[in-house]
């Protein structure tokens, strides 16, 4: 498999994003505003106490800046396939000599790289300068955080991939995508740090893919997990990627079959 067409697509996506500068600056501002509002709410909730249940305010802010930052980076285009089914261009895509899934990943990675550099980093810098963000627990933990964050992206991508594939049957999946995003935002800790979820809820969440998207990397970053736990959590991430991807892939194959039998 030649990589150069995929790199070309990734590059195209990366450069495409830089064309809409105003929108992009607004994105950064919106993330910062969200971040500040959440920090203020928690400051008020803490009401001057230095910690609640062993969770300190800097941990909260660090959780928010990492989760929201990653949320900005992890933004797979949920409408990649639905749009192509909608306008019929899925036909030409299938007749191209490159893998459609490969192209999808390439475009999402191009997007993610752009967001990492021009969205996450500015937000991080602003957060460090204003509210303050804890340093990573150690250099090793930071590297493990990066690894786990990459795996988290994999989980999120797989979810988006699987949800998109339903467009072969449902055509308009706006509502499904919205529900997915609500689940991701609420259950993955980017709105409410999962520390504050009731014990039973956290137990349940451990069995869903959502907590492994943002919360696992954040915990690693803060040094809350032992090496054994990190290995386990990363393995859980890998399992989720594999399982959800496989489900998506089955839908993908069935979807193509449906396209060939019933037409697009």
């Amino acid at each position, binding site marked *: 498999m030649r990589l150069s067409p995929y790199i*070309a697509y990734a590059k195209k996506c990366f450069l495409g994003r830089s064309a809409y500068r105003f929108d992009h600056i607004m994105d950064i501002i919106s993330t910062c505003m969200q971040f500040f509002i959440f920090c203020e709410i928690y400051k008020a909730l803490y009401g001057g106490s230095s910690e609640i249940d062993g969770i300190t305010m800097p941990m909260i802010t660090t959780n928010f800046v990492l989760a929201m930052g990653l949320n900005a980076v992890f933004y797979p285009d949920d409408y990649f396939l639905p749009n192509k089914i909608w306008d019929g261009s899925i*036909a*030409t895509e299938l007749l191209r000599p490159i893998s459609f899934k490969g192209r999808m990943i390439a475009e999402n990675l191009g997007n993610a790289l752009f967001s990492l550099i021009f969205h996450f980093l500015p937000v991080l810098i602003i957060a460090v300068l204003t509210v303050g963000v804890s340093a990573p627990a150690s250099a090793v933990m930071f590297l493990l955080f990066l690894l786990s964050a990459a795996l988290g992206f994999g989980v999120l991508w797989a979810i988006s991939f699987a949800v998109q594939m339903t467009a072969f049957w449902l055509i308009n999946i706006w509502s499904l995508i919205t529900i997915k995003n609500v689940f991701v935002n609420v259950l993955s800790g980017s709105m409410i740090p999962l520390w504050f979820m009731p014990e039973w809820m956290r137990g349940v969440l451990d069995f869903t893919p959502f907590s492994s998207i943002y919360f696992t990397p954040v915990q690693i970053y803060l040094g809350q997990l032992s090496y054994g736990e990190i290995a386990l959590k990363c393995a859980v991430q890998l399992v989720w990627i594999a399982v959800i991807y496989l489900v998506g892939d089955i839908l993908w194959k069935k979807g193509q079959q449906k396209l*060939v039998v019933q*037409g697009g």
Partner: protein
Amino acid sequence: MINFENVSKYALNNVSIHIPKGEIVGLIGASGAGKTTMIKLSCGLLAPESGRVYTLDKNPVLNRKLYKNNISTFIAGVPLLCHDDTVSQGFELIRNMYGIEKTEFHKRYEKLSEQLDFGKYESQSVKNLSLGQRMRAELGAALIYEPKLLLLDEPNVGLDENGKSVLCEILTERCKNGMTVLMTSHDMSGVSKMCGRIALLDGGKLVFYGSEDNLRSRYAPIDVMRVKICGNIPDFEDLPLKKYFVQGDILTLSYNSNHITSAEILKLILRQTSVSEVSIRKPSLESIISQLKKGGYYELY
């Protein structure tokens, strides 16, 4: 190149057809007759309900990957070039995708962009182009990787006269080098100009498949001859003419060209009188098709 064996799908009903290598085959018929379905069946975008389709001796649905470099499919309204890209970016992406060597690609691009005349707006993005401009660029995109088989669904939409004749030239030239084309079109003069064979679909059935001359002699053999005579009005009693009438010195004759040739008629006229002008009109493909649709020419046979 393409073989349909008793294929049924949507409107198509038990269609069998063989499209030989190096031929330009024009698929014509009213909207909804199943033309696009045939194109999609040929490239494997659709699977037949019953019967079999072979493209390059293989089942196109199962071997889609294999074909990707051999078949180029162009369906009007389904973009080949990305909307956000400029024309040249779009082509670069195609070069990359098909792994064509740079200098070779450049050579082809130069030629196509000159022929189809899209070079002058290559730095504009595709979404800003007019329909005709976009069609020219997209046709270039379909042709640039030199496929063995080209499937075109209404390639003439939005093209001006010059564009149509250029497309005709390119396809004719390519087919001499072994490319095969299956195209649908509503532009009968274009079909008549370039297609060696015509496949006529009506109500999902293949009602005719063969050359245009063949079609004419079968469904519309009536030619019309107008002769300006100087002198006596000749006598035609023996000839199998459909009808004739005289208006001043102009004689209008219609006859079945399967039964008598124009040369024979002319010879007879010249034996009796002298002639200053002759014109012979054969029915155009367009009028044959529209007559066929009405059922007009069927009554001849």
